[in-house]
């Protein structure tokens, strides 16, 4: 086998010497030429090509089949392929890419009819110096010189190092070695001949090459293919791969948004993001028709030209007219699929409906995406004039546009794997970052931001601060090494209070503020609506797992209104989500665990519709304490009933009604700014605890424990310490600080204390008692219960040796003896306590001593 590096020269020269005439003028034929691809794949359909050169000379007659077809597997010897391909610099290595582009090539090009071969052949712009191995030749209509381009790309592959890479595609690679050479090795081992190239890398390495790639993808990508294959087979001459390596660029920075596509992008490489809304059935697209003469059995192949097959009217062998018949199963087809992509909701301006774009996936990209997937698609943007109607002399003056996909990158999929920080990353302009940083440097940024939060809702400063911290969240930590698993970074908040205290409004505001917020109402949501359910997809008729609100708000905030109205079974799914941040599902044969790293912002109304200050939080909202203890902050939103407050409230409301928009905008940071601020902090700031801060936290925790121990109760649990840490981290994030410092801890302590003061105050004693939230009963209440039980025991003992007593009698006696009012409930509780001690049993109306 000849050395691949030597052969191209030969190949080029051949082409150069090729008479330019047949196709130099005819601009419409490039597809036919482009297609002379992989001979190996179709080698059994025709005599093995004697030499590539002959093959080239008679492209129309010779089989120039495509690859794509099912015939692919037929591919006998890879070595053979290389052998043949390398001289044909343009042909083989890139056949895959060409196949992909082919269907559109013929019809798309309008002004720039580019043909790689003919340009080389006639090269009008190129001072044709064939000896210099085509060094100065450029592809007609572009400024791409194949030789230089190839060299540059090979240099890029060999040298590009990206030490700071965090790309998930590069997982497991040595960052200090040339990245793409490692990938080639991977291809050699794995045998998947696709090389994904991040355009960002290319841009940083060689801006000019990048520009060429963007502007002339149709020419440059085949060149890249050639370069890669040469390089690859030079390195791994014995490698066996299914077909030659294809280069698939992605992450072209050209366009991110579907709405920005405009006629200038036609035929350029673009990357857009969107959501797949429909995929078609697989469309077998005829690439080449096989005709056989009915008379003499002479066969010929005709290629598709702009979506049509020109049926040969005359047999060239026997000159019979209309004798050629199409033989379907010897024709060659390629796979194609139409995909409808819709603009992502985030990209859309308000008040407009989303745009859609048609994307074609070819060959192995078919069925790579499903409806509902969020994807970034890199491809070539095409515009095709609507076909001339044979019966009509007029043309519709409209083009159809579509994108030929080269690379799919699912954003959704990665979310499930938890590597998403980056995909989320919003692109901030430097100017914006500067403004944000300036804002962060202000000493009162925390107050500013909290007052910018829901300005229409009056006061409740601490609640707003809490929600602000929730928006930022703590730092995500991973303890899976030590077996603890993830450490919750999300802050959960519960708001409870009188109806009509704008809780819902606050929830609505937060839901509108965060990019991935979900809003549900406890009354209307079922457990499956929150978690996940299995349903039949109307498109594919397959069972699919549909995720519910909690999973959808992964990395966002799930706002749950009417939390108290939720059924118990629904609430129970929250236990796992709110601490472990995962969601386990075992239904309909699907057993899985989904990430649900969501913050919960819930609102609950008191059971008696009005908050009863004489009762504890638990008694007021009747939620299980197991759930309550998972909230970091529980706030009461009560009507304060105080004159100064009323006055401020009135002023606030009145001004709301007459101030003009502009005035208010000056007063507060606008919502967009707040959004950006939060998004920036969430993606770039990861504060760590400083030494002093840790000491302060320890001290705070010990103090909290001490308070309780004085009165013989536990006033803090490790969960409270974790909450404190999260809050302190979030506060550091607000300041854009990488370190959690003492002031953060101070604020966290203050806020936590405030929340506790509101929610965990024992109405009987007036003390803050954390056990109200953690065990559902205040320590005093428990003590009271014990005392009552003892009193009852004493009462029974005082009665002397009576084996049985009347229930009602005992109750009356106890009541008469006690100086506080005793309800039946309390009495029963006391009886129960004694039963547990094995002191007595209750059967119906009689109490029996044991």
């Amino acid at each position, binding site marked *: 086998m000849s050395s691949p590096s030597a052969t191209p020269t030969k190949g080029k020269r051949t082409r150069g010497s090729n008479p330019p005439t047949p196709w130099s003028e005819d601009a419409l034929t490039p597809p036919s030429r482009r297609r002379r691809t992989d001979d190996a794949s179709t080698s059994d359909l025709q005599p093995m090509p004697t030499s590539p050169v002959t093959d080239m000379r008679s492209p129309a007659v010779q089989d120039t089949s495509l690859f794509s077809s099912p015939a692919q597997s037929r591919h006998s010897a890879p070595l053979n392929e290389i052998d043949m391909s390398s001289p044909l610099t343009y042909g083989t290595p890139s056949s895959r890419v060409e196949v992909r582009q082919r269907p559109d090539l013929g019809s798309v090009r309008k002004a720039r009819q580019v043909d790689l071969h003919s340009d080389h052949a006639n090269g009008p712009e190129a001072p044709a110096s064939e000896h210099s191995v085509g060094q100065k030749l450029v592809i007609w209509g572009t400024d791409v010189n194949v030789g230089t381009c190839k060299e540059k790309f090979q240099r890029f592959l060999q040298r590009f190092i990206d030490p700071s890479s965090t790309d998930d595609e590069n997982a497991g690679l040595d960052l200090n070695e040339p990245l793409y050479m490692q990938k080639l090795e991977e291809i050699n081992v794995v045998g998947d001949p696709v090389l994904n190239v991040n355009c960002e890398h290319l841009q940083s390495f060689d801006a000019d090459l990048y520009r060429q790639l963007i502007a002339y993808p149709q020419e440059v990508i085949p060149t890249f293919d050639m370069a890669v294959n040469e390089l690859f087979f030079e390195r791994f001459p014995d490698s066996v791969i299914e077909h030659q390596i294809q280069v698939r660029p992605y992450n072209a920075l050209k366009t991110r948004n579907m709405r920005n596509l405009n006629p200038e992008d*036609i035929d350029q490489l673009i990357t857009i993001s969107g959501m797949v809304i429909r995929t078609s059935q697989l469309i077998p697209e005829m690439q080449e028709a096989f005709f056989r003469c009915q008379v003499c059995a002479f066969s010929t192949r005709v290629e598709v030209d702009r979506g049509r097959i020109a049926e040969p009217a005359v047999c060239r062998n026997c000159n019979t007219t209309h004798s050629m018949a199409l033989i379907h199963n010897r024709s060659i087809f390629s796979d194609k699929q139409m995909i409808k992509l819709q603009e992502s909701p985030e990209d859309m301006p308000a008040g407009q409906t989303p745009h859609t774009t048609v994307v074609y996936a070819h060959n192995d990209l078919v069925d790579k995406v499903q409806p509902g997937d969020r994807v970034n698609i890199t491809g070539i943007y095409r515009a095709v004039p609507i076909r001339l109607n044979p019966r009509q002399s007029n043309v519709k003056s409209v083009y159809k546009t579509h994108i030929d996909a080269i690379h799919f990158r699912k954003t959704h999929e990665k979310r499930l794997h938890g590597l998403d920080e980056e995909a989320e990353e919003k692109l901030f302009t430097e100017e914006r970052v500067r403004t944000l940083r300036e804002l962060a440097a202000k000493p009162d940024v925390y107050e500013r931001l909290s007052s910018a939060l829901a300005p229409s809702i009056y006061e409740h400063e601490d609640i707003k601060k809490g929600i602000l911290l929730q928006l930022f969240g703590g730092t995500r930590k991973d303890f899976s090494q030590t077996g603890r698993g993830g450490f919750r970074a999300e802050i959960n908040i519960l708001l409870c209070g009188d109806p009509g205290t704008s809780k819902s409004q606050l929830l609505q505001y937060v839901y509108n503020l965060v990019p991935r917020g979900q809003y549900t109402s406890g009354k209307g949501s079922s457990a499956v609506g929150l978690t996940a359910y299995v349903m039949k997809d109307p498109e594919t008729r397959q069972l699919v797992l549909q995720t519910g609100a909690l999973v959808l708000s992964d990395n966002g905030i799930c706002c749950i209104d009417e939390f108290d109205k939720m059924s118990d079974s629904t609430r129970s799914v929250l236990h796992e989500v709110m601490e472990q941040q995962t969601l386990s599902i075992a239904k309909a044969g699907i057993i899985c665990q989904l990430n649900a790293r969501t913050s919960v912002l819930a609102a609950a109304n008191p059971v008696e519709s009005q908050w009863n200050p004489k009762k504890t939080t638990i008694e007021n909202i009747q939620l299980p304490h197991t759930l309550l203890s998972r909230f970091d902050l529980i706030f009461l939103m009560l*009507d304060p009933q105080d004159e100064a407050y009323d006055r401020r409230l009135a002023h606030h409301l009145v001004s709301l009604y007459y101030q003009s928009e502009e005035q208010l905008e000056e007063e507060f940071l606008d919502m967009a700014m707040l959004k950006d601020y939060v998004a920036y902090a969430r993606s770039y700031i990861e504060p760590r605890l400083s030494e002093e801060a840790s000491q302060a936290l320890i001290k705070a925790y010990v103090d909290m424990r001490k308070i309780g121990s004085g009165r013989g109760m536990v006033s803090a649990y490790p969960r409270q310490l974790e909450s404190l840490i999260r809050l302190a981290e979030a506060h550091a994030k607000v300041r854009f600080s990488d370190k959690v410092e003492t002031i953060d801890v101070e604020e966290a302590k203050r806020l936590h204390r405030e929340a506790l003061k509101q929610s965990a105050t024992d109405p009987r004693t007036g003390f803050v008692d954390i056990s109200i939230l953690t065990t559902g009963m205040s320590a005093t209440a428990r003590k009271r219960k014990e005392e009552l039980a003892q009193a009852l025991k004493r009462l029974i003992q005082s009665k002397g040796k009576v084996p049985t007593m009347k229930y009602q009698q005992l109750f009356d006696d106890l009541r008469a003896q006690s100086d506080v009012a005793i309800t039946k409930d309390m009495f029963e509780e006391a009886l129960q306590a004694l039963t547990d001690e094995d002191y007595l049993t209750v059967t119906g109306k009689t109490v029996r001593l044991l």
Partner: protein
Amino acid sequence: MPTVHDWINNPLGIVEDIFAQSNCSPDWETKVLEYFKEKLKDNEAASWVPSLNDVPVHYLKANSLVKFRCFIQDMFDPEFYMGVYETVDPSSKSKVLRSGKYKDVAECGHQVDLNTKNAVTLERQTFYCVPIPGESPWVKESYSCSNPARVVPSTSYAPCRHKRSYEEDEDMETQPHKQKEQLAGPQGTTDIHGSGDPKRLETEAPSSLSNAASGCSSPLDLNFPLPGEKGPACLVKVYEEWELFKVNDILEVYGILSVDPVLSVISEDKDSSLVDPMDCTESVEEQRVHCPPASLVPRLHMLYAHRLQHNNPLLPPAASEASSGFLNDVVSVRGELLGYLTHVLLGDALAAEYLILHLISTVYARRDVLPLGKFTLNLSGCPHNSTYTEQLYRVIQQLIPSSFRLGMSLHNMNNLRLVPRKDYTANRLLSGVLQLAPNTSLFLDETQLEQGQLDSTGVRNITALGNLISWQKVDYDFNYHQMEFPCNINVLIASEGKSLLPCDCHVRLQPQLAPPNLEQYISTIQVSLSPSLLNKFRIYLSLLRTLDYSISEEVTKAVEDDFVEMRKDDPQSISAEDLHRLLVVARLLSLSVGHTTLSRDRWMRAKHLETLRTNRTEQQKCVNGNEP
């Protein structure tokens, strides 16, 4: 005077002229726009332009300038078209540059050279527009009367399109054709029918008709938001600044009408053997929606459009112009209106007062998620099982430009599509009842409620109504996600007891008289109203919405004091919510007498009204313990 009307009859000729003169300099487009803007400046001239709203499509000349008062129901994807292209005359080989703007079809009696360097591809956007949903009959009438430009006397046609006879249809095809040929001379205009083969026309017309009838199993759904609407739908092609328009805007579009049958032919080819592989991009449904027969859904190439602040024909487009003159007799008109509505509401003056406030309310601003200025009214105590609510709606419809009555019967709730939904198969937004233009009145008739179970659609519909009332937004269903569209719809709920929907203000109707025959009673009131007075009412209600409003420092202080005082006596008596409502009532009360600032008196009056109203509710509570 044919030259004057040239720009109406043959606008494309003018476009071509300007294009030819400009020698491809890019500013020809602005010249075209300026030309037409200049022409249309004159109100008189604008009224010469025939309106698609009044004249059926088949009476209008193809490629003439028409106007259309419409509502943007959906936005299709932008399309790329041949902005400038070159045609080659096969005999002489001479090349001519042409502009493809404002046209659907590139005329090529000659061959089009797709590959020339001079070709320019441009982008345009298509809006799917329908007549303004719920437009009252008097508005339509009034507009069409003020528009003298009628191509053919309207007496000769039956408005129902389905009954159109074959002859008429032919007429429609050939008539503009003939007219055009007469006009074609001087400008050397383009004849879109190519060589004008009359035979083709004859064969074309029936085929497209049969296509409409047989090819599609159901008649084409024109996607009107409200059931039972009629009128032309239109694909409006927008060339400039389409970002400025939004779904649900109401516009007056001046544009070139295009009804070329070629446009609908495409779908006909569908089953022929020549199926282009590229054609599989679009499903049959999608084709039907995006390329409907031009005779049903004409194309309109926008030359000039302006967003309408209102669709009240009695007011000039910029409502503020009229305000100064009218404001003088606002008080007297208000008195008359109050009297009228009191009669209609069976002698309940308080309810009439609140009804006026409701009718002039509008969302004037939004503070983050909170819409300000909305005033949803719940009139409870409407007699069950009677036509009273219907009568009441008729009266309201007489007064305001657009409205819709939604009977909340179980059947309606379970079956109607209230929220627009994206149909991905046809790639369009299926409209729903709640897709309404700003300032439309939605009359919810809760007296039609009956016993039964709401299914999931019903629950969703009720939730959507609740959202609409509390946040003035509708979450359109995009299957994979929801999208929030802010709206501005006045909701009036007529119910027997207190409504099950949230509302800003609940007034218990207390009829002072009980006429034996309600229907007769109301119609007598309506008849006794003089048309000029009725028009005054209409102007009054539309105009007051547009006024600005402010509160002075002084009054702010007073209001604050008042609030604190009230709270001191009884904190339960007034909450923040009540203050919100009080402020809205005070605002609307001031506006209703033409005052743009709040005075102490008005504030006291607002408080007084509120007290009267709440007392009534309290009373009701005592009478009927069930009512919350």
